[in-house]
């Protein structure tokens, strides 16, 4: 793995081509899990690991996979890792497994995983694909954790389940429900896009 390329991929997945606010992938899970930081952390770690390992596996198998059944094989590999994570959570983290409920199984529907498998792992070597999957997961995690921090703080008055707000604080019920994630995701997109647009115009003017 060449270092400059790895750094470029990291920057791309965390900022320039972030799966949430640029590619707009994986929005459904953003709405579902981000009302508590604990659940978000477990879920996003699950997504990052699934993306990384399924990209690795699919990239390693890419020369063997016939094009006709490409997608079927991708789905088999992705669901393999998701079920594996579900089994491991149930065995070693029963509390988190109970709280996440059906969301773990829903990792498989996360478009980021298949998106990376199709867009990157198919044309790149295994280790680089692993890194790409992992950093895509990290980009997803960064945005979701930020949203979850706002939602949990205003919706429950806590962070990671610990009381932060003063006793008299009235929780904002809307923050617990899915609509608030729409507002917050939109705000993140607005912020990120305007910063990127400003940088682009600044870059163009510097060239002139």
């Amino acid at each position, binding site marked *: 793995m060449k270092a400059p390329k790895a750094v470029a991929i990291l920057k791309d997945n965390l900022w320039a081509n972030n799966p949430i606010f640029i590619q707009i992938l994986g929005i459904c899970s953003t709405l579902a899990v981000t*009302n*508590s930081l604990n659940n978000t952390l477990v879920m996003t770690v699950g997504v990052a690991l699934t993306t990384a390992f399924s990209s690795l596996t699919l990239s390693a*198998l890419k020369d*063997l*996979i*016939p*094009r*006709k*059944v490409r997608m*079927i*094989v991708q789905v*088999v*590999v992705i669901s*393999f890792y998701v*079920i*594996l994570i579900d*089994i*491991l959570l*149930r*065995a*070693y983290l*029963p509390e988190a497994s*109970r709280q996440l*409920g*059906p969301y773990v199984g829903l990792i498989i529907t996360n478009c980021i995983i298949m998106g990376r498998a199709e867009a990157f792992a198919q044309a790149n070597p295994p280790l680089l694909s692993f890194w790409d999957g992992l950093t895509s997961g990290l980009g997803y995690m960064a945005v979701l954790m930020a949203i979850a921090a706002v939602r949990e703080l205003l*919706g*429950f008055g806590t962070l990671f389940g610990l009381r932060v707000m003063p006793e008299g604080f009235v*929780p904002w*019920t809307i923050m*617990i*429900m899915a609509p608030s994630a729409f507002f917050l995701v939109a705000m993140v997109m607005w912020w990120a896009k305007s910063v990127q647009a400003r940088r682009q115009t600044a870059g163009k003017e510097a060239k002139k």
Partner: protein
Amino acid sequence: MKKDSMLYVVLFTFAVCAVFTLALAIANEGTKDLVAANAEFATQSAVLGALGVPFDGKADAAARFAETVGAGEAPRSWLATVGGADYVAVEQSGPGLWGTIVVILAATPDGERIRGVRVVSQNETPGLGGRIAEPWFLGQYEGERSPGGRVGMRAGAESSGAADSDKENGRVDGVSGATRTSQSFAAIVDAALARVKESGGER
């Protein structure tokens, strides 16, 4: 063999499925006992919690459970003597707002006074309906009188939004903002009391 030939495609797909499914089967087999132990601990801790028996950790819960609780005649029911009084505990499930709510309820054998209630599983909205699993809500049931095997639920506008501390009125306060979940919960508690009465009357 050509990569796009029918035979290769079929064989490859078959092999990929077989290998990955085998790996999952091995993982499942390997963790089966651990998963079963976790499920057993979840049930035991809920039964002990409903009976008001304190415990400390997994091993202690199993010991206390073996010490105080015996199996009832009906499936998923338990008999126990705590502090010289007999209690019947039952597991009861019913529909919530989003999914099934499973509770364990302990009460006197005649079903006239509740000992305690614990939620085993629920999928209600976190922070709203999900608050039925919180101690302030379940605490209202501890020692609550249930005349005729029923506990009233003050849901919606009737609810004070705080816990009802009167143990003799046969009423509890619902979770504000979760009227439907509160009503469902009341129905599950009443059904559980009916089952306690059924199995308690046989003794």
